[in-house]
């Protein structure tokens, strides 16, 4: 508790720097990441993150200092080059984009490692700490870093705000953007530049490998909650900021804990939770909806079976047992039993010992399903000219989703046919008009 208060009072400048830095980095990468996510280029962030290493080493070799401005410039140049190369390779050869990304990523990083070890072996004392670019050093952020981060983050934020509409358009419909005369090429270049900037700064907090998460994960999490771009950006920024603060807090409370990986851990947990529980798109929501639909299809199929059995021996009141039903259509016994029980509870069936009987309500519903099935078969053979022996399966699916409005239109369109293509009678509630 004491830790919590010390931490969140932000009295300690160190805490202020670490938290401020982490939050700024997380927010700016999350915002840029939303656009790369929507452009289905989420993994280019990973490539850039690896490609900045040779740039940093070259900048150090050429300038001989660890001045962050030089290093960031070097990182920026090779990061940018990597994206251009990925684009050239995919356009000029049969190599696919994912291969190009993986290739550029590993080769640039390999060159970077080679340069880094050459610098280390050269015995140059000024190089110590150069490899913090590899793994990040969020916990060691100092005032100067924060100034640079803030400037870059503000540039990123301004870039995203100013070009919001343009980026939205090229993310969703590039062809349309082109057709209405947008400078798509230049906008792509601007987005690429912002991505590289976000990666270059972010790496110093979380390191090379985890940088991809700072771009992709908040965007992926936010996408599950909304279909609106503005809200998605806002959510991604909030998720990013929250994980930035949490990462800083965790490594403050437990100093042996690395800040960067914890930032990624927190944002990943937010994302995993979102994948499961988000309404509409969440996995749980989908599973529940699927099982509901499955149950409904099962109960409707059972009612249809009862009706068809009734038709066969012209007795809709007859009690049927499980064997009789399964003889007509093999449904697995446990599923069938639970369906029968549900139908009895809903009042569509009457349960006697080991056998079931249609109620009036059940008869009506069964009749409607049989009618829809046969109407659809007529429609398919008559209007789509599909052979009668090919229509059954399609009708089996459609019968469960036809609405009463469509039902009425079908009846009118087909002029109340009396029988389906297999010569079975189509049952109606109302008398057939002449």
């Amino acid at each position, binding site marked *: 508790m004491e830790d919590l208060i010390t931490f969140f009072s932000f009295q300690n400048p160190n805490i202020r720097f670490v938290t401020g830095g982490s939050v700024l980095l997380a927010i700016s990468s999350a915002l840029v990441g939303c656009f790369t*996510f929507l452009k*289905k*280029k*989420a*993994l280019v*962030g*990973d490539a850039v993150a*690896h490609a900045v290493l040779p740039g940093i080493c070259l900048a150090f070799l050429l300038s001989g200092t660890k001045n962050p401005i030089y290093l960031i410039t070097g990182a920026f140049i090779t990061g940018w080059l990597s994206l251009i190369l990925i684009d050239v390779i995919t356009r*000029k*050869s*049969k*190599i*696919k984009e*994912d*291969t190009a*990304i*993986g*290739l550029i*990523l*590993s*080769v640039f990083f*390999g*060159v970077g*490692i*080679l*340069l*880094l*070890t*050459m610098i280390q*072996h050269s015995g140059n004392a000024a190089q110590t700490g150069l*490899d913090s670019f*590899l793994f990040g050093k969020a916990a060691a952020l100092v005032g100067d870093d924060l100034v640079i981060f803030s400037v870059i983050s503000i540039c990123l934020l301004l870039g995203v705000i100013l070009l919001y509409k343009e980026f939205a358009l090229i993310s969703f419909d590039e062809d349309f953007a082109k057709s209405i005369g947008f400078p798509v090429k230049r906008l792509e270049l601007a987005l690429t530049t912002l991505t590289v900037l976000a990666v270059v700064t972010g790496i110093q907090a979380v*390191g*090379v*490998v*985890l940088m*991809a*998460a700072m*771009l*992709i*994960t908040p*965007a*992926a999490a936010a*996408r*599950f909650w909304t279909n609106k771009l503005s809200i998605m950006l806002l959510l991604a920024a909030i998720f990013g900021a929250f994980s930035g603060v949490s990462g800083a807090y965790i490594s403050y409370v437990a100093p*042996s*804990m*690395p800040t*960067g*990986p914890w930032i*990624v*851990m927190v944002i*990943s947990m937010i*994302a*995993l939770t979102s*994948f499961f529980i988000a309404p509409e798109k*969440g*996995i749980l929501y*989908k*599973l529940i909806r699927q099982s509901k639909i499955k149950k409904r299809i099962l109960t409707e199929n059972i009612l249809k079976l009862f009706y068809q059995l009734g038709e066969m021996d012209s007795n809709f009141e007859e009690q049927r047992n499980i064997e009789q039903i399964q003889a007509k259509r093999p449904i697995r016994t446990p599923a069938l039993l639970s369906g029968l029980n549900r139908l009895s509870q809903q009042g569509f069936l009457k349960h006697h010992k080991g056998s079931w009987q249609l109620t009036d309500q059940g008869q009506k519903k069964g009749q409607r399903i049989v009618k829809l099935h046969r109407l659809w078969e007529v429609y398919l053979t008559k209007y789509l000219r599909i052979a009668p022996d090919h229509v059954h399966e399609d009708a089996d699916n459609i019968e469960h989703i036809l609405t009463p409005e469509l039902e009425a239109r079908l009846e009118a369109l087909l002029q109340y046919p009396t029988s389906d293509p297999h010569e079975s009678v189509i049952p109606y509630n109302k008398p057939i008009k002449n």
Partner: protein
Amino acid sequence: MDALYIISAGSLVAVTCGLLGCFLILRKMAMVGDAISHAVLPGIVLAFLISGSRDSVIMLLGAGIIGILTTVLIEFFHKKGNLQTDASIGVTFTWLFALGVILISVFANEVDLDQDCVLHGEIAYVPLDLWITESGLILGPRVLYVSGFVFLVILGFIILGYKELYLTTFDPAFATAIGISTVLWHYLLMAAVSLTTVASFESVGAILVVAFLIAPPATAYLLTSSFPRMLLLTVILGIVVSAAGYYLAVLLDGSIAGAMSSVAGILFLIAFLFSPTEGVITTRIRQKTIKPNA
């Protein structure tokens, strides 16, 4: 002797990775290989903790399982969550890698691993880590045995499953029609990639694994359109990369893994520019010589 040990270890890993990589890049799964090579980290750490040693079969198994789990998770988020593939890959492997780094921090005293060696690996230590029997007999570098074993397993897998792997890569619909399970072979291939990654991890590092998985196959792909020839070229390229990479590293006094990746990149660049059929420059020259006649 050291040079021979290092080059043979590098070649074994390069050839094993390259053979699998040919299937990966044709299946558009290059980044899945990248993801696995990072995501097995927590598996390796946990296996260290459970088995207490580096060279046990438990380690290969444990980390192999995490590797397959990674691909299952990627598929799950993609299929059930409707998350696009690239994002699904990105979210999954970064999360697992973060978990691995956190585990290393927590058990820093018990696990003899650090972040550096995980990423760039230290193939230079190959000749130092010798397999010495209880009677004191020196049998050579341990890494050679491990990578040699994995190489044989993977080679056997590819030879025995060649038809199935080939069909599920080039014509999955036909494969399904004649009763070959694409799902089964997908996961078998993923298991093979995980096994290779884990075995290569501490000797060559995650990034060189990715470079070996992708660069030689991509280069071979530009040089031929016949798949068996692509496999053969990949093997040759893998050995060339290892040998040239080693001497480049000695020349520049730098990381061997880094130098091998760099050489792999240079070879790709040469193929990209000068491949007889595909090369950017060769095509341009051909176009120029054709034009005057047209």
